[in-house]
């Protein structure tokens, strides 16, 4: 046998495959499939608690970002991939509801959720978490330059901050889109393009996604870039503290609270689900205290349920803007693609 190496390789591969299939959990009970995007996260003990209480095992299916995951759910609406879906936000809400992929269901803890988050009066979608997209600033940079920290969106167009802001492309990035919506909410349908013209004249830097903006271009990011102002999240300062080792006593970054746009994330039972009852139980669980308390440190957003205790990095370092910018989901749904097109012409061409 001269072709032994090849045979050995195949054998090795088969062995590996055999081992792996042996270790899969052989759940005797029921399962429920949650379809979601890549940013969904939950800790293992919390998932186990759900299985222990209900006897239901959760299978999580992920694909792409929030937009891609929702589009896949719409594409498969005749034969859904799973039972429940998590990750519809207010920017895509009207597309999700328009496609009719969710069935109404009143989750157990819904009355504990502030009315402002209950975006679907017919209760096809249940709010799970919220967060704010805001301009973040590098505290050390502004201290070094002895420059006043900007406060408002208007300030960002001021020549003294020329070339200091990096934003994400709204066509490819969720925070980028939220920031575009913030400017529409602030300056109105007729004024927002003028504002972006001013930003462009002020050398705003546009990159494709959050990773490049924050990790590479932001001066307080790990890449020590050139821009001390970046479009990120209100929860970025606590995340900076949480992931740092050793932990600093103050956050290295701050948030411009007047620039924040609110994002609410919702979940629903998919129409045609094979296990609708299990899906309802899962969504009840997602609104329960246990799951809600797990949210901040897993996904770095805020629990939708009022009165959920927050971890100390959040209570110490997070900012919740009192009056975030907001647009009705229906308005966003009708204009989103149009606005992105206009933005591209105004800022990139």
């Amino acid at each position, binding site marked *: 046998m001269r072709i032994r190496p090849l045979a050995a390789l195949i054998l090795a591969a*088969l062995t590996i495959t055999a081992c792996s299939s042996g270790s899969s959990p052989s759940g005797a009970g029921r399962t429920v499939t949650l379809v979601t995007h890549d940013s969904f996260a939950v800790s293992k003990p919390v998932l186990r608690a759900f299985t222990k209480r209900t006897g239901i095992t959760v299978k999580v299916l992920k694909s792409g970002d929030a937009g891609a995951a929702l589009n896949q759910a719409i594409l498969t609406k005749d034969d859904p991939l799973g039972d429940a879906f998590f990750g519809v936000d207010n920017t895509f809400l009207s597309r999700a509801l328009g496609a009719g992929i969710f069935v109404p269901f009143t989750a157990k803890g819904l009355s504990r959720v502030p009315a402002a988050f209950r975006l679907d009066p017919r209760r096809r979608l249940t709010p799970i978490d919220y967060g704010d997209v805001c301009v973040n600033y590098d505290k050390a940079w502004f201290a070094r330059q002895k420059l006043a920290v900007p406060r408002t969106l208007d300030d960002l167009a001021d020549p003294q901050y020329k070339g200091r802001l990096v934003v994400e492309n709204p066509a490819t990035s969720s925070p980028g889109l939220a920031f575009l919506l913030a400017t529409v909410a602030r300056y109105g349908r007729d004024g927002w393009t003028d504002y972006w013209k001013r930003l462009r004249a002020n050398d705003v830097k546009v990159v494709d996604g959050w990773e490049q903006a924050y990790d590479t271009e932001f001066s307080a990011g790990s890449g020590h870039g050139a821009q001390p102002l970046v479009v990120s999240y209100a929860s970025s300062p606590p995340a900076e503290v949480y992931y740092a080792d050793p932990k600093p006593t103050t956050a290295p970054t701050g948030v411009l609270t007047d620039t924040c746009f609110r994002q609410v994330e919702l979940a629903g039972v998919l129409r045609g689900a094979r296990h609708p009852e299990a899906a309802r139980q899962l969504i009840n669980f997602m609104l329960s205290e246990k799951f809600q308390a797990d949210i901040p440190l897993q996904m770095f957003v805020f629990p939708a349920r009022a009165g959920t205790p927050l971890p100390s990095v959040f209570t110490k370092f997070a900012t919740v803007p009192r009056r975030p910018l907001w647009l009705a989901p229906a308005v966003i749904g009708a204009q989103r693609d149009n606005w992105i097109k206009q933005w591209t012409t105004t800022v990139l061409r």
Partner: protein
Amino acid sequence: MTRAGRVALVALPVAFLAVFFAWPVIAILGRGLVPHGALNLDPLGQVLTDPSLRHVFWFTVWQALLSTVITVVLGLPGAFVLSRYRFRGRTVVRALVTVPFVLPTVVVGAAFRALGVSGSLAAILLAHVFFNYAVVVRTVGGLWSHLDPRPEEAAQVLGANRWRTFVGVTLPALRPAIIAAASIVFLFCFTSFGVILILGGPRYATLETEIYRQTAQLLDLPVAAALAVVQLAAVLAALAAGGRARGRRTEALGLRAAGEASVRPRGARAHAFLAANLGFMLVFLGTPLAVLVIRSFGAGFGFDAYRALTRTSSGFLEPPIRSVWTSLRYAAIATVIALVVGGAAAFALAGAHRSRRRGRGLLDALIMLPLGVSAVTVGFGFLIALDSPPLDLRTSPAIIPIAHALIAIPFVVRVMLPVLQSIDPRLREAAAVLGAAPRRVWLEVDLRIAARAALVAAGFAFAISLGEFGATLFIVRPETTTLPVAIYRLLGRPGAASYDQAMAASTILMVLTAASVLLIERLRVRDVGEF
């Protein structure tokens, strides 16, 4: 080979590609262009007449052509020194050269940006060369190391200088491999996604980024389908051109064992040439990689980031280091699928070329197509095509190695086919004359020679699967984190510590790739000189 055997060799790859590629793509194109049971070609007209989309199309074509030419020109000398010169550490260099090819774009993008290369056409071209250098070195080098040196020697004895020998003797002999490598590089650059977005910046758009935007963001399936048709047509045209250039005449080359054909560099010029090429690889490929490795040790230059990977942190269900095992498992499965399916296709194509059977061009094109079709198109196609038993694979983990195999199969075929085609028919005739039955001839001649090429292909397939990220992201998959997906997640968290961990995970991916390619190459080196 019996007739039944021949049919099986063709049927296997055709069935695999039909089910896991053609059907899903047709299904998703159908959703876009045949929305209510009637063909609607309006979106196609709309796409073809839109001036900004025309601009996108031409940019896609010429940046891919330019990237391909530069990669081939720079890669050929590299392929030469790594296949014809014998020197200490050659196997290691050959394995290391493969590393850039498998790194996720997000990671390389970060390294390029740290070096100040971004936001320009030059950055796009540089990145394309960086990623695809290994394709030329390995695909062309695979054949080059087996070329009989005697025709070149004869030419030189007859008075041809080095250049004439290269142009008149070596280049024609290498043509199938060069065109194979160029086709692969072209398809990769033509469907380039991450490089365009991350290194080009938001001002650059290709057909691929447009299809992604229309499908994943806007859910405008008609326009996405029209764009995909344009992409498909362009890719088919490119493949046809490559096929013509390759298929005019493939002569049997006297193949030699890899050891025989390589020599120690002799003379100052040879040494200088070797040094120049190794220097180029070191600077051009090594610098971005070094940036990543250095970052992985953090500001304090310690192993904190590596230690952190062994703990379960927020956003992960298990320690990120576990994804190494997941990745290795998928890579092993994908490699076996790719070798079996791609190997069958390579044998079928080699046989069809010998007897000039019809349809060989079609099979050849079908195999290459997965490289030229957008990952979003295939990923979304899986959803609506593979939805009923026994092929309800939409939510099965099996979908990941299958997707990886789709990308690896073209490599397996392109590496094996030039070698198979160049088998001197006299070897077979000699075996037959000596009394070997057809099956025995195939086993003892074709398969034996193929086994060696198959190992090169296996190394490639394994590496492709280890590093695959784009397609993995667009298919719906159960909660299994491969190493590139773990890197992406770590990059998605703020803070220097997370970034360092992403770089540490990238370093592990690099080491893993180099080690597995080296290991597989080892299998090859051990039986050198058997024929």
